[in-house]
């Protein structure tokens, strides 16, 4: 069974093209990793000097006046954390309830309409949501709560919650989806009502997946810039008590976005902004790591508990 010379040539060509394609894909794959690495190195190179130029005590002090050489990042870090946590507190019950409704309760036709609508939510540009927040949510927060201004951490959290919701819902829904049918059947067979089955069996079984959804939603919220900048008022005040929720805050992302345009290259202020970038990167990295760990545990335990 010897192939004709023509057939052999064809095999050689197809081997060659296969080799080319394989190499190409490999190069592209590695270059993505390389790019991320380069960006990280750039961030380090531009940001690390600030840790030498400003003493650590100054860097983690409570006042941020970059134009006058006061670089206390603490109000910015706490501002970001405050807004993000509050956003998740708002988004979690809404997101899980929506996911449960879409996956467990809604009839098939409703699910078919709801799912694409939820996906469309994710596509709304953040600046549009920011504008909505500025002209609608902020005045409402002011009038209903009687705060001096509506541009507060709470208004920002509402907008962020809205932005985190689509991610949260679809990941949580996937988690519910991976709960085997037998669990539901067993629950119902034991005489539990539908509500009891959902609340005591299905949702707990999908717990780690829901945790992942929360982490991903948090990652989205903490990195959001434009909407937050438009709605939170951007006053670098230290959050000190529960009342701070209804006071203006300044987040790390808004600070970088607002000040990078003006700053002189190579100045302490410039390095400080990249320093904030490093802090933000570390925070996001920790959150993503936690999410990855949750996914890993889920796999190990067969998607349950």
């Amino acid at each position: 069974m010897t192939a004709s010379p023509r057939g052999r040539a064809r095999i050689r060509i197809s081997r060659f093209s296969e080799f080319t394609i394989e190499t190409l894909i490999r190069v592209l794959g590695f270059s993505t990793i390389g790019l991320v690495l380069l960006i990280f190195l750039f961030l380090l190179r531009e940001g690390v000097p600030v840790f030498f130029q400003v003493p650590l005590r100054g860097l983690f002090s409570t006042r941020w006046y970059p134009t006058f050489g006061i670089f206390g990042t603490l109000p910015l870090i706490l501002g970001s954390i405050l807004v993000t946590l509050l956003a998740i507190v708002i988004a979690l019950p809404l997101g899980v309830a929506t996911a449960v409704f879409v996956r467990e309760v809604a009839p098939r036709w409703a699910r078919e309409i709801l799912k694409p609508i939820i996906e469309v939510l994710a596509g709304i540009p953040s600046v549009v949501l920011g504008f909505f927040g500025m002209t609608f949510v902020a005045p409402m927060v002011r009038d209903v709560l009687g705060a001096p201004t509506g541009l507060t951490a709470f208004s920002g959290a509402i907008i962020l919650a809205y932005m985190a919701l689509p991610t949260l819902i679809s990941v949580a829904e996937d988690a519910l989806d991976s709960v085997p049918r037998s669990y539901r059947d067993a629950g119902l067979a034991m005489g539990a009502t539908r509500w009891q089955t959902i609340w005591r069996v299905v949702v707990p079984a999908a717990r780690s997946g829901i945790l992942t959804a929360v982490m991903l939603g948090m990652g989205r919220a903490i990195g959001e810039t434009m909407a937050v900048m438009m709605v939170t008022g951007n006053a670098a005040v230290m959050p000190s008590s529960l009342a701070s929720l209804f006071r203006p805050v300044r987040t790390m992302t808004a600070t970088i976005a607002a000040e990078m345009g003006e700053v002189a290259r190579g100045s302490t202020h410039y390095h400080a902004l990249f320093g904030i970038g490093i802090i933000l990167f570390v925070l996001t990295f920790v959150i993503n790591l936690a999410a990855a760990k949750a996914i890993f545990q889920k796999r190990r335990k067969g998607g349950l508990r």
Partner: protein
Amino acid sequence: MPLRGTTHRMAIACLAIVCAAGCAGRGTAPNTVGAARVAAAPSVRDSSILNTGSDTLVNLALAWAERYMALQPEVRISVTGGGSGTGIASLINGTIQIANASREMSAEEIAEANKNGITPVRFTVALDAIAVVVNPRNPVKGLTLRQISDLYAGKTARWSSIGGDDRPVVLLSRESNSGTYVYFLEQVLRLGDGKSTTLFSPETLLMPSSEGISTEVRQNVNAIGYDGLGYVTADQKMVAVARTAAGPFVLPSAATVLDKSYPVSRPLYMYTAGEPSGAVRAYLDWVMSEGQGLVTELGFVPLRKSGQ
């Protein structure tokens, strides 16, 4: 004719690049510089003027550029904002021909320009008044500079202590990258005293745009803000300002800026790298003469009374 078409296309390409760089500029200043350098290829430099800087001036600069290009079709002028600091930095890097600034260049910036072999030349192109604005429902009509300074330093927490209702004060300011912020800090908060170290209260809300300030002032009775006269809309109330408690309390307008009775006004500048020549010179001459006709339309104050 085909040659001219090519030039045009190149100019449009430049414009697009500069626009893209300008839009991205907020977050990535180094990129702006890189892209602008590409755009300023020597072959188009003579007939194409790149003009970047102050957000206060950007609308006026755009209006000038559009009118001038209609009069002189062979000249292409592309205008972008980004803040006085951004414009000056680009001038220092040699990537633009004209920088718009709502403040004078600092000694450090001039030194840095000199290091790059550039001697910045300053042209005063218009005057601007900084209006202090409150919500129309706020009964306060006039404030002294000292009262405004105390408000923004956080010493006055309630409107009732300066003749208003018993309400908390919400302070609004532009972001610290705006020339307006620096001017307001030096001339109003510190009352022109170079040795003063007064700062904006940490409670001050820093708004990313003029639109942010006007929206909040329109909606919130507690708010006080400041912005260039050209950006004050009809639904905000301007406060009359006095140098001392004895008065007179003066509202900002073209007339009160020109006769210097309104205390918070400043010149707006265009900077060039060295004495300008050719198209840039002709443009600046036009801006400071016939171009002044557009200044009032955009809410600024021309260098001279019209008709003079």
